C-alpha cells in the first residue's frame, strides 16, 4: 500500500483547468519535488491534497484512506502539514506565540504531545529552526519580522504539528543562498526521522540535491516523473520549464 497516492486528480475553475487528471504517489520517508512553470497547477495540487480545495474528481489516498474533500483542519490532524507560498503568520502575535496555535491542535494532543509549558516548547522548536533563542527575535511580533524568518516560521508550524507528511509550497523563494543552505539540512534531517515531504519549488538546483523523485506539471498535466537525474535529461521538461541550464 502506498503511503500517499494521488489518482486522477482534477480541478477546474470556471473554464480554467488548473489540475488535469494528475496521478502520482509518494513513498514514506522520501522527498517528492513538484516543479512546473508558473500557473501549471502546483499550488492547486497542494491545496487539493491538504483540503483547502475540493477536487472535481479523483482521489487522494493517504495510507489507503481517501481524504479528498475533507476539511483542511481534519486533514492536518491526520498528519499532513503544509506551508503557504505567500507566508501566513499571525501578524499580531509574537513569533513564538505563533506556534501556540498548532500546539493546541487535536493532533498534538493525540500524539501524547506537549502538555504543560507551550511557550518553552515553542521556543525550542524555533531555536532548532534558526531563531536565536537568546536574541529578541522570537519575541518580536511577526509583523515586523523579516521575510526569511517568516518562511522559517511557516516551517516551524508543521514541525510543531508533528506532521508526518509535509508539503512545502515554494519554501525557498525569497530566501538568500545562505538561508537556503541552512534550511536544506533541516529538511534532510526531517526525512531521516521518517517524515515524508513534498516540495513545490522553483529553485531547482537546491531541490534536485535533496529530492528522491520529481513530478513535472505543465498546464495542469503531469508531463514527466522520475528521479532528478532523469528529469534533467528529458527534452520536454527542458522545453516547458527549465529553459536554462543548471
Amino acid at each position, binding site marked *: 500500500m502506498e503511503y500517499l497516492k494521488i489518482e486522477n486528480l482534477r480541478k477546474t475553475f470556471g473554464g480554467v483547468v488548473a489540475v488535469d487528471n494528475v496521478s502520482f504517489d509518494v513513498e514514506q520517508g522520501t522527498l517528492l519535488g513538484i516543479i512546473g*512553470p*508558473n*500557473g501549471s497547477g502546483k499550488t492547486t495540487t497542494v491545496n487539493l491534497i491538504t483540503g483547502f480545495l475540493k477536487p472535481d474528481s479523483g482521489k487522494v489516498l493517504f495510507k489507503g484512506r481517501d481524504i479528498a474533500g475533507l476539511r483542511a483542519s481534519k486533514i492536518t490532524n491526520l498528519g499532513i502539514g503544509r506551508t503557504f*507560498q505567500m507566508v501566513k503568520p499571525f501578524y499580531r502575535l509574537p513569533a513564538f506565540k505563533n506556534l501556540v496555535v498548532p500546539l493546541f491542535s487535536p493532533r498534538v494532543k493525540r500524539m501524547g504531545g506537549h502538555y504543560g509549558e507551550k511557550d518553552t516548547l515553542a521556543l525550542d522548536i524555533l531555536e532548532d529552526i534558526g531563531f536565536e533563542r537568546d536574541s529578541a527575535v522570537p519575541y518580536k511580533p511577526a509583523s515586523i519580522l523579516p521575510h526569511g524568518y517568516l518562511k522559517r516560521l511557516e516551517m516551524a508550524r508543521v514541525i510543531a504539528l508533528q506532521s508526518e507528511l509535509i508539503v512545502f509550497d515554494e519554501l525557498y*523563494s525569497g530566501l538568500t543562498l545562505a538561508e537556503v*543552505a541552512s534550511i536544506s539540512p533541516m529538511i534532510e534531517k526531517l526525512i531521516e526521522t521518517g517524515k515524508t515531504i513534498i516540495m513545490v519549488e*522553483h529553485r531547482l538546483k537546491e531541490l534536485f540535491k535533496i529530492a528522491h523523485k520529481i513530478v513535472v506539471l505543465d498546464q495542469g498535466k503531469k508531463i514527466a516523473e522520475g528521479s532528478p537525474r532523469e528529469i534533467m535529461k528529458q527534452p520536454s521538461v527542458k522545453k516547458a*520549464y*527549465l529553459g*536554462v541550464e543548471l
Partner: protein
Amino acid sequence: MSMLSVKNLTVFYENAIAINKLSISVNKDEIVGVIGPNSAGKTTLMNTISGLMLDTKLKEDRRGGIRISIFGSVEYLDENITNLWPDKRVRKGIALCRERHPVFGESDVEENLKISGYLSSKEQVKESLSLVYDTFPKLLTMRRRKAGLMSGGEQQMLAIGIALMARPRLLLLDEPLLGLSPNIQAQLVEAIQKIKQQTNMTILITEQFARPLIPIIDRGYVIENGMFAFGGSKDELYDNPDVRKAYFGVDYDEE
C-alpha cells in the same frame, strides 16, 4: 549623467534603523542592481525612492503608529524630490514595481494594465499594452482572468506589466524574479534588456539571488543591514569572492 542620486539616505522605523547613510547613484541608460539579503533594507530603499514611504509615514503618523523618519536626499535629474509625493514622481517618470506582486485583485488582467495607464494617452496605453503582452505572452492568453485568482508567478508577471504601463524613464523593480520559474526568469531578464534598449529606460533592480541578473546589470551595490557593503561594476562584483558566494551562488556548487 547621473539620473538618480541618493545621498546619505537614512530611514528609521521608530528607533530601528533600516537604511543607514546609504548613497547610491544611477546613470542614464544603466541597469543597476541592488543586492542584499533579507531585511537589508532593499524595499525600504525602493519605497523611499518612489515616494511611497512618505505616504506610509503620513498614515502611520495619523493613526499614531510607528514613527518613520527619513533623512538625506533623493535627487532625480538634478532636482531634489525628497519630499515630492509619489504620484508626482510617477509623472516625472519614476515607476515602481512593488515586491510580492500586489496587483488589483478584483480586476481582470487587461483592466489591471489599463488602470496603470492612468497617466498616458489612449494611444500610449495601446502601445504599452502591446509591449507588455509581447514581453509576457502568457498574460495575453489570460486577459480576462481575475488577477487575484492567478498563480503567484502569474501575478508577478502582471505586477511588472503594471509598472511598465506607467511608461517610466526610471523603472524600479523590487525583487521581480521572486517566485518565477527558471524559464520565465530567463525570459524576463531578456525582456528587461530588450525593453531597456527599445524605450531608453533606466532600471534599478533589487534582488537577493542575483545570478539571473548577471548578464544584464551594468553596475551593482551590495547592501547589508541598511549599509553600503560593496559596490562596483558587474565584473568587480563578480570577481569579489564573498559576493560571488553569497549572492550569485556560484561557488556554492563546489562546496
